[in-house]
């Protein structure tokens, strides 16, 4: 094992003189009394390694000893990840002792002594390759696949497999023989370096299926796709986190990974508090059972922010390789970028725009590229759908993180300050936001098979009506209520109806917070029928009174359970108004 000594300290950047061989991104440990503090090498020059420390550097000094581990930052992949609360380095937060996180304490990731009931899926003699399923164990409601280690290259023969029964995670459950006769022992768990994409699959597709979020402004107007990518930029107070949490609650994924990256601790506490109680719409079990949280809040080590998003992505890819639909949410990718900036700055590198490191766009592109829907070698399909929030400085989207993300993410959910100020939530701007998937023929076909024929037309129609509403509003405010034709008022109020009835959604109301696709279809058809109505109005006051009443009825409908008597009553009331 290579050893080294600390030669310089600036905040959490250490300069280490080393004696032997050191890798880029290698993990090393600094000895501080009886503790050892973890750090990651981020640059090597002239026998000096520069490492970012995952702890505070208080009390470190010149010539303190450093041990290099010979390994990159890795995660433990195996049963026991679901429902866990990890920190940014996959340490189990619940397994830590005490109220405060002590510096340099020994931690655990998954429980290697836990016992799971194993069922083999292969027989001795089978030819297998990396990521092939050898067997499965039940983990919550998921059939957790035990896979051939991802690090193996080429074909192997299965020479031994454990019979069905109970085993510890750390016990051998299979033996593989390689071409040269070498024997590989397989347990339920394996390790994988977080910065490398897990590529053991046959092929990656272009996303074609809608990823249901229960939010009308997304599913109806700007749909996300299974295996797709999207980003949500917004100034503070525009509702990024509430939006992400709403998506985390109402989706149809098999598994959800929430990465709290450099954000508020209380937001994660809310999830800790509510998810064990909330029911998952997909499985009918508790939400907590399909959710894993990676939590590196803003007061936790800055260097672990970068690690946290990669740990999340690697776990997502792992479950994807079991043929599952995984949703990965990261809040906020800007904090990760800022962590990169802090380090780049301390290393005195020449800065790019706004002092961010010049490689930022490449780093972001690479990360978003890891999402997608894939076919595994056994033809099963799995996907990683990724949604990241961006916190642009000053709420201005012309900044490096937002711009770099825009180039790679296919869906854009712009949170508008104006809408947030007017308490029109979710504050997603329906016009400026987009979903590139709406342009994919295969996605269009899939979507119309759910929402009915001409659906894409209807979506365009709604966007046109919203656009016309904005123009009409501008004209009215320039020329005055009296000086514009009545049609302008009609246009304006139609867009208000779509805004209040379809786009706005009360994420704190048990019913309105989630609209299943069938409900969205019904509501959209109802709203568009109203927009066809031209009526017989004498003046603009009549128009506004008429629409205000309609909006009020529509709001009542939104608070009623789909297809309930109440819902039907309000729907009839709306239809009667325009009959």
């Amino acid at each position, binding site marked *: 094992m290579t050893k080294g000594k600390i030669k310089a300290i600036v905040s959490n950047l250490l300069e280490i003189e080393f004696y032997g061989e050191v890798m880029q991104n290698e993990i090393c440990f600094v000895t501080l009394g009886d503790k050892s503090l973890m750090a990651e090498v981020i640059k090597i020059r002239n026998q000096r390694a520069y490492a970012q420390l995952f702890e505070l550097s208080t009390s470190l000094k010149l010539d303190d000893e450093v041990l290099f581990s010979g390994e990159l930052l890795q995660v433990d992949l195996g049963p026991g990840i679901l429902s866990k609360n990890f920190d940014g380095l996959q340490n189990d937060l619940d397994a830590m002792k005490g109220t405060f996180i002590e510096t340099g304490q020994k931690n655990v990731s998954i429980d290697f002594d836990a016992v799971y009931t194993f069922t083999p899926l292969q027989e001795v003699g089978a030819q297998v390759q990396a990521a092939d399923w050898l067997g499965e164990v039940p983990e919550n409601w998921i059939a957790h696949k035990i896979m051939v280690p991802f690090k193996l290259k080429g074909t192997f023969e299965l020479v031994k497999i454990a019979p069905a029964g109970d085993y510890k995670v750390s016990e051998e459950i299979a033996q593989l023989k390689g071409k040269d006769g070498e024997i590989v022992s397989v347990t339920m768990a394996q390790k994988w370096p977080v910065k490398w994409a897990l590529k053991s699959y046959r092929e990656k597709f272009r996303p074609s299926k809608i990823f249901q979020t229960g939010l009308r402004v997304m599913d109806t107007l700007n749909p996300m796709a299974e295996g797709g990518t999207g980003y949500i930029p917004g100034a503070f107070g525009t509702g990024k986190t509430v939006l992400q949490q709403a998506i985390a609650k109402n989706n149809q994924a098999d598994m959800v990974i929430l990465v709290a990256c*450099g954000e508020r601790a209380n937001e994660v506490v809310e999830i800790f508090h509510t998810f064990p109680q909330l029911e998952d719409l997909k499985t009918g079990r508790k939400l907590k059972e399909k959710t894993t949280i990676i939590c590196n809040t803003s007061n936790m080590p800055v260097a672990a922010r970068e690690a946290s998003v990669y740990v999340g992505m690697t776990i997502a890819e792992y479950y994807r390789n079991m043929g599952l639909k995984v949703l990965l949410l990261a809040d906020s990718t800007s904090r990760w970028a800022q962590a990169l900036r802090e380090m780049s700055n301390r290393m005195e590198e020449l800065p790019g725009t706004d002092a961010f490191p010049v490689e930022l766009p490449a780093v972001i592109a690479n990360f978003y590229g890891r999402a997608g829907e894939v076919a595994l070698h056994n033809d099963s399909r799995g996907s990683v759908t990724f949604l990241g929030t961006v916190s642009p400085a000053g709420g201005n989207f012309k900044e490096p993180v937002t711009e770099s993300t825009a180039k790679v993410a296919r869906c854009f959910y712009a949170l508008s300050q104006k809408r947030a100020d007017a308490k029109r939530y979710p504050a997603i701007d329906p016009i400026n936001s987009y979903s590139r998937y709406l342009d994919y023929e295969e996605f269009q076909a899939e979507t119309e098979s759910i929402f009915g024929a001409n659906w894409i037309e209807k979506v365009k129609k709604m966007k046109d009506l919203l656009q016309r509403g904005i123009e009409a509003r501008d004209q009215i405010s320039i020329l005055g209520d009296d000086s514009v034709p009545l049609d302008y008022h009609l246009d304006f109020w139609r867009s208000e109806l779509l805004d209040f009835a379809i786009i706005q959604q009360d994420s704190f109301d048990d019913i309105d917070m989630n609209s299943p696709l069938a409900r969205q279809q019904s509501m959209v058809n109802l709203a568009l029928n109203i927009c066809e109505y031209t009526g017989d109005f004498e003046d603009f006051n009549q128009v506004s009174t008429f629409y205000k009443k309609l909006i009020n009825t529509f709001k009542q409908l939104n608070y009623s359970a789909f297809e309930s008597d109440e819902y039907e009553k309000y729907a009839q009331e709306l239809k009667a108004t325009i009959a």
Partner: protein
Amino acid sequence: MEIQAFQAIYTEITALTKATCTLKAKGITYDELAWVDGRNAQVIKIEGELVTLQVFSGTEGIGTAAKVIFAGKPPSLALSPALGGRYFNAFGQAIDGLSQPQGKEVNIKGLTVNPVRRQLPSEMLSTGIAGIDLNNTLVTGQKIPFFADPDQPFNRILAEVALRADSDRIVLGAMGISHDDYIMFRNSFKERGASDKIVSFINTSEDPPLERLLIPDQATATAEYFAFEKKEKVLVLLSDMTLYADALAIVSNKMDQIPSKDAMPGSLYSDLARIYEKAVQFPEGGSITIIAVTTLNDGDITHAIPDNTGYITEGQLYLKRDTDTGLTIIDPFRSLSRLKQNVIGKKTRADHPQLMNALVRLYADASEARSKQENGFDLNDFDVRSLAFAKDYVRELLDVRLNIDSESMLNIGWKLLAKHFKVFELGIKQEFIDKYWPGEKD
């Protein structure tokens, strides 16, 4: 300065800037406290045998042969119940003429609370101010700043909020506030009989700016002691965080760090978050609530300091002068309390959220009507009614001088709605209308 026998004295100064001093020294630990010719300093960089110190009171008059001694430990504070009622400077030294309290010495930087050991903040902190209790309800364990222009009476309102709120302990961290405001805080604590429950760390505009860097840590370390060890409900007041951030920028600049937006260090977000995240609700009952002040330049919230603050804190409160009535109110549009969802409609009456939203939305309609009026357009009947409503809303609810209990706020809200509007103009759930609407249900 505690000089002990046989303590090593270093005199080989190799570099001096306005804020830092670099010297040759051995066996020095990172973050360690030191004294340069008796002035307080702290290790911020170690490079081989060269150690760089930030000298809190500035380096004017420090010579190349200055005597430097090291404390062997990071800045610490002696914690005990005896801190109650006392005034200290940024180094935790008594400035009220009384003796220095003894107690358990702790590193003021402290440790991070394990997020899974936090309790969800869900206890309302009432202030009697409708702009807060009704529109932006605060919760114990929350962190929230006032975003204020320098000419607004933010420190007076901060003191008022602190004194009205139900707490066991108030910790004041004053950074660069005027001497006059310091006296104001002291007098109002005294007059309102709160002298014993306050602990103050004071750095006024007369004190060296870099000393401010220690104030938030002193205040939060004290708060953590009373909240965690003594299970008290602690309220921390930090004013003015903008001046704290300015001090960070000075040090970063003298360390030749590349500035990011607005000449602020790239680590500003993390630096501020470390302080604000000390706000916590412990499961054992104690809590730390932080109410801070961030002064703005000409109302500009896109500046790096308020911008980063907004991303960290759980909302923000803006002070505003209502143009129609001339009264100071908490701006209902831009202010936000993110944790209000944990209590409104749950710990308060069920109609609270919808009623509050309707009131704010109608107040927004009034402000549109006003701009229509200013642009010379005719007002329609709804515009006229919303303008009349806005006046009542400010006079009977929002005026910060009023002290109303939260149930009465809701009743006044319904009364104002019924006075000026019809049911269909509100978009409120029918069940609440049935229960609370005091007027005719047309």
